């Protein structure tokens, strides 16, 4: 490749470029940076200072050390599919893109583990090993393009985490570049229970604020011997919700238990993967059972009978793998499908105790009426993880703000019934203020205390995850002054 000279007066761009083996692996022109001004959360945009593309842990470490030494804000980014704005450069950060670190380093089927670089795409891992009878369990809807590094940062979930757990339950070890540029191994070569505080568990889901993951040891699982999926249509959403509870109460642990309401069905049927769901039903349930083939039929029978007891209009098991795959494609592209019925949409991610489903759905309906915005509901009903999708039109002045407020109101409902504000998308910048729905100032401070152990100068991904403490402190100070004054 022909060597080009960097056309900028920014001495740090020159400085960073010098640290890269490929001196051109850096973007700094405004027109190149625009693609990096947001991630999957498109409501807030902000330009980075530069984007660098390291190929190795050592390069990442050199860049981080440079940023640390020169007090430059920086953050890591994978495929940019995050839905809460965790990779948005709020402070003109240097973005360290990990998409070039995408090697599958090792597969050890005997010991059920694989080692990948952070830019390795989630679904690729399963595709690599499925023929040999294995797979990687966490399956976020974006798995065909999201990276495992990003999954670690967000502690990503997916439709099948009801039975198999989320990302944190599948991470055995990490290599991490700390915010001062030091490289550390965490989780001792993937051996369970390495003595010491569980940094592995702490870093998973820390939204890129404690360090930059450069290598990941993941657990892989054996393919289940059998698998069957049931589809059930309900005329009344409460019957559908009750069926969910009944299935769980019957002692069945489905691999997945998904639900979509009428508006969501309208969306998925208008989009690229329609399967012919009736338009006039109130809810569809998608229930998947997997495991030893000999035990599956009985469980399917039980599920069918539970649904019938709850006034199901139609319930049946998938005829073949093709039909099963079509149902799942229809469901997994559900968020994007909203684009077919609305110019813009905002995805929310609350979690509630399963038993509160009917109550929460009623209250979300009320929020929809209050704000005059349609809200579609797609959810992992089995674990109570709701995804209300607020449909709006950003071209109408004020409607974006209204959508954000409606989304926040949905999260308040989730928190009020004993749930939480995010089950798998993360807090990012989107839900910082909503953290106060579930944590006290003291509890938030306990978390930022831990951040300061790793991220001493807060140069790494600042402004994410936590509500701004300064505002709170200032308010308190002001009040104190008033009282004293």
């Amino acid at each position, binding site marked *: 490749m022909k060597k080009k000279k960097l056309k900028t007066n920014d001495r740090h761009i020159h400085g960073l470029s010098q640290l890269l083996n490929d001196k051109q692996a850096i973007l700094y022109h405004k027109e190149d940076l625009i693609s990096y001004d947001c991630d999957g959360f498109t409501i807030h945009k902000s330009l980075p200072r530069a984007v660098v593309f390291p190929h190795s842990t050592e390069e990442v470490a050199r860049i981080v050390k440079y940023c640390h030494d020169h007090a430059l804000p920086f953050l890591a980014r994978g495929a940019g599919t995050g839905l809460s704005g965790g990779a948005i450069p709020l402070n003109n950060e240097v973005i360290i893109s990990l998409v070039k670190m995408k090697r599958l380093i090792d597969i050890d089927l*005997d*010991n059920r583990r694989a080692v990948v670089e952070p830019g390795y795409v989630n679904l690729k891992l399963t595709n690599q090993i499925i023929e040999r*009878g294995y797979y990687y369990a966490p399956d976020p809807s974006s798995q065909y393009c999201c990276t495992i590094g990003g999954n670690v940062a*967000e*502690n990503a*979930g997916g439709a099948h985490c009801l039975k198999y*757990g989320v990302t*944190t*339950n599948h991470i055995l070890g990490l290599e991490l570049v700390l915010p001062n540029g030091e490289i550390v191994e*965490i989780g001792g070569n993937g*051996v*369970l*229970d*390495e*003595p*010491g*505080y*569980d*940094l592995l*568990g*702490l870093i*998973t*889901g*820390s939204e890129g604020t404690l360090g930059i993951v450069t290598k990941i040891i993941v657990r892989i699982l*054996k393919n*289940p*011997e059998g698998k069957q999926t049931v589809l059930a249509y309900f005329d009344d959403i409460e019957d559908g919700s009750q069926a969910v509870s009944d299935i769980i*109460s019957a*002692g069945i*642990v489905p691999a997945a238990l998904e639900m979509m309401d009428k508006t969501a069905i309208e969306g998925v049927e208008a989009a690229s993967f329609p399967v012919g769901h009736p338009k006039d039903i109130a809810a569809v349930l998608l229930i998947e059972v997997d495991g*030893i*083939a*000999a*035990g599956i039929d009985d*469980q399917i029978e039980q599920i069918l009978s539970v649904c019938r007891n709850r006034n199901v209009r139609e319930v049946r098991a998938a005829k073949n793998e093709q039909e099963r795959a079509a149902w799942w494609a229809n469901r997994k592209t559900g968020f994007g499908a909203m684009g077919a019925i609305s110019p813009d949409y905002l995805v929310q991610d609350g*979690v*509630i*105790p*399963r038993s509160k489903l009917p109550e929460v759905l009623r209250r979300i309906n009320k929020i929809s009426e209050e704000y005059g915005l349609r809200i579609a509901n797609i959810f*992992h009903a089995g*674990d*109570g993880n709701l995804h209300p999708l607020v449909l709006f039109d950003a071209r109408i002045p004020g409607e974006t703000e209204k959508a954000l407020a409606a989304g926040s109101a949905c999260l308040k409902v989730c928190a009020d019934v*004993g749930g*939480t504000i995010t*089950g798998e*998308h993360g*807090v990012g910048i989107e839900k910082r203020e909503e953290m106060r729905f*579930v944590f006290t100032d*003291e*509890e938030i401070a*306990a*978390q930022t*205390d*831990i*951040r*300061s*152990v*790793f991220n001493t100068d807060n140069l790494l991904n600042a402004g994410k*995850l*936590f509500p701004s403490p300064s505002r709170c402190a200032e308010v308190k100070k002001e009040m104190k002054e008033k009282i004293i004054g």
Partner: protein
Amino acid sequence: MNDVLSIAEYLTTNKLEYEMTEPDLFGNSGQYTVYPTSEEELSALFAFVHMHQFTVNIQGTGSKRGYGGLIDQADLLISMEKFTGIVEHHSGDMTLTVKAGTKLEDVQRYLEAFNQKLALDPFMPYVSTIGGVIGSNDSGPKRLNYGSARDAVIGLRVVYPDGKVIRTGGKVVKNVAGYDMNKLFISSMGTLGVITEVTVKLRPLAKSTATCIISFQGEDRNKIYSFTRKLLNNSIEPISCELLDPVVSYEISGINKLSLLVSFEDVEKSVDYQIKYIQSLVEEEMKLTVLRNNEEKQLWDRLYQLPFDKGPEHDKDEKLFAVAKIGTINLNVIDILLKVMEIRKKDNIDIYTHGGVGHGLMQLYIKGKEREMIETLTKIRNITNENGGYCIVKHLPLAQRLVFDTWGETKGAQYLLEGIKTKVDPKKILNRKRYVGGI
């Protein structure tokens, strides 16, 4: 002396139940033992000890007093033994909140009535409290399928060393709001705070269970290895796949052979099918025994009670008893187990072990006089380090812990652990020197 008196005064004035305690073999005790029953009491007590910089040790029933720690007595020992009871159980949501001093066995017995269980199988469940199990992240052979406390716990209430009460996680089964602070306290050996309440997710009780004992004729490494691989590289879904040396196998099943303990929990048809599958897999020179119902339960009970230390006063040779935990990459369990058997023969020492070939965690027991015990532990640690793993000591008297480091060498990230400890417990009053590298 004045200090100690003022603790007694505080306890008396605040009508807390307490007693004076003598030092004992295992250390980690306190000059006084106090039995709080509420979070308010604990929070106020910590505010007091924090202000005066009194040192505090913490325990459940004390079954892990031989697990780490370099201090004989702190100023005060807080026993959570009386901090018990179910707080909330949402059967339909499959979540349970329980006070930290509740014994694991009591939790399981309560849940049985609802056809539910807490999927955890730590050792000594009849005496271990849920707080202790979480604090040490203890798990047994069924870790293979159950996971451990780090997979089951969804929320905690923790009293910090300065008395403030912090909630971590929540009460729902899926939650990524903020850092996963639960993980910080799970396996922290009580060095960061006192867990008062625990919220866990539950699982349905299996409709059917069975345990297969597959005994090998000899100790041929290659045969065991290839059979184990064949067993694991398969669609069956064992709950445990634990390799037992002949001593452990004899102790719990009466079969004096190197054996694999493979258990199943599922609907009846699935369990039956998997047993048949094992039957088809078992080779001529192996023997298969299938246990169900009471026999099965008794076998597991005996295994979980192996770490129970009757104490040197019950041993006519006054031998000490040690329990160690080994972590390695899954199939390395086979080699380590065979090496332990070699040591037993060669050194003529009473050592026995078992370990999970699907998760790489082993439990090891040694009975012996001080010198031979330390020598053996050193050998074992060297073997595990060579195999890319670790060996820590779960049970050993204080005098020997001072000679043989419970945790082994500290790793590169030690300063992060120290940083966390300093942030949470800047005065270092809680479980001082209990954990890795003296944190």
